[in-house]
């Protein structure tokens, strides 16, 4: 099933918004089974990168290919069966059941039977540790619970494609911003497991450097719309690159519990 080479291939990506250059020549490859974390300061172009790769924003230059086809050649409906996006701030303010919200992930797959959909919804909610919320109403949930429900919806979209499309792309923009530490770890763990077992490629924007080092195979560090570093956490999380990305002094230690992983502390001694 797997194709040779990368599921997502980004080359020399440029993007201008409001006359300002937000992305200036970013490039990377992402294979199915791999989780790539995107780190960067506020305004460094993380969300723009995700929106461009999702097909929301026109390319200002460069090339983005999904499964070997240029992004512009994809129809919106076909794209929805191969990539799922979780935007940064969900804005649902209408009164819907959790079951309905999560089930919307299957809208690109109208051929699914109600029974198949029900199974998928329950599985996704379980993966997001939100199975107890199934019969609740979305607006009555806390911010973190809502974020997990939205994550489950995106998982339904990615998992519905099983057997329909091949490898799929999962784009998550700060999926852990409202979550407690346990759920942050759970969410990234779920993403890593699904990537490995289901042939997903995941691009995840994160703010917590140590969480990213633990949960991602590789990291992309952005500063001012350009890539500062791209590689495994141990390769890219160095005091020099962190200083460039965040403008803050940082010290990097070997992780006391996870061999081979770096542990970052921000702030001068």
């Amino acid at each position: 099933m797997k194709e040779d080479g990368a599921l997502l291939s980004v080359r020399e990506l440029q993007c201008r918004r409001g006359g300002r250059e937000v992305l200036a020549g970013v490039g990377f490859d992402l294979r199915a089974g791999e989780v790539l974390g995107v780190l960067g300061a506020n305004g460094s172009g993380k969300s723009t990168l995700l929106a461009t790769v999702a097909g929301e924003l026109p390319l200002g230059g460069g090339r983005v290919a999904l499964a070997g086809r240029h992004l512009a050649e994809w129809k919106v409906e076909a794209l929805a069966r191969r990539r799922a996006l979780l935007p940064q701030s969900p804005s649902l303010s209408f009164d819907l059941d959790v079951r309905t919200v999560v089930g919307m992930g299957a809208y690109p797959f109208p051929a699914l039977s109600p029974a198949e959909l029900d199974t998928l919804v329950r599985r996704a909610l379980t993966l997001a540790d939100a199975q107890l919320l199934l019969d609740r109403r979305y607006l009555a949930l806390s911010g973190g619970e809502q974020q997990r429900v939205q994550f489950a919806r995106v998982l339904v979209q990615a998992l519905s494609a099983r057997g329909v499309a091949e490898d799929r792309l999962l784009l998550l923009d700060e999926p852990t911003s409202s979550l407690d530490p346990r759920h942050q770890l759970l969410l990234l763990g779920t993403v890593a497991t699904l990537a490995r077992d289901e042939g997903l490629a995941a691009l995840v924007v994160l703010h917590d450097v140590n969480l990213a080092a633990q949960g991602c195979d590789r990291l992309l560090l952005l500063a001012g719309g350009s890539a500062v570093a791209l590689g495994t956490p141990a390769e890219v999380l160095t005091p020099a690159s962190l200083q460039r990305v965040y403008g803050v002094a940082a010290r990097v230690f070997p992780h006391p519990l996870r061999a081979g992983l770096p542990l970052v502390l921000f702030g001068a001694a």
Partner: protein
Amino acid sequence: MSTVLQDAPAWSPQRHVAPQALLFALCLALPPLAIAAAASGAVSIPLSRVAGLLAGVPAGDDQAALWRNVLLEVRLPRIAFALVVGAGLALAGAAMQALFRNPLADPGLIGVSLGGALGAIAAIVLGATALGVIAPAAMVGSLAATALAYRLGSRQAGVAPLLLAGVAINAICAAAIGYFSFRANDTQLRNLTFWNLGSLAGARWDLLAWLSPWVAVLGTLLLRDWRAMNALLLGEREALSLGFALSRLRRRLIVWCALLVGPLVAVTGTIGFVGLVVPHLVRLPTGADHRWLLPNTLLGGAIVLLLADWLARIVALPAELPIGIVTGLAGGPFLLWLLARRGST
């Protein structure tokens, strides 16, 4: 994000009615209400005789013959008219609220209502007296106003410019209506009231013969799009990510709503508040899932306008109130109640 979401539960009512149950109840309620409305009015007909009268009249029974005539030629077309127009207006309201992701949107927001009224009123003041001229003028006004609002409002991303363009077009239409009213003579002025406040008095079987299938076709198109409307509630980025091309979807919903509401305005004038309030009435107990919201809104709109027209016919006998006064008097306080509820919780 969380500030918006954390006040949101104020909108979420505690009790919950299964939408399927509401649909069932509305289906059950409609026939008896329609029969009761058919029986009362300037000529009162015994309820028990309505069914028998429709079947036929014994020879020589002049009273029964009169009743049958009133039923067939006056009441029934009028009731059918109320059902069709109410269903169409309410359904368009629900679609606009999804499109604008705003529970306070209304079909009139994109100019379709005031544009129609302006077309009709301009035709009347410029000398037209036949409905055959006035109704097409209303239809043209309706579609032209919407098309203009859409063209000007869709040059930038998002629905906010569309909303602003609609507001501007509505302001222009209202001013033009004011100008034509100022120029109108006394006879024309009475005629204008009809367009401004709406009336179902123009109900006729020959109008229904094309209006009903028209509303049925466009209603079906809108009902089939429930997934897209649900996706819009999630957010525009989410809808796009789920495979709904936003600009195409937006254009489609606007065209369908304009084509649905335009002819209704052309034959009944502007009837306010049904499109705004009925989707709310349905959403409060059953939630916002459009799979059920749309059919419930359709039936609810039919029943609400049936009741409003019934009131308009009997409250000031032998005269008849413009229906816009009834829907406004009921809809306005309802909206205030909604706002008060939102503020107090």
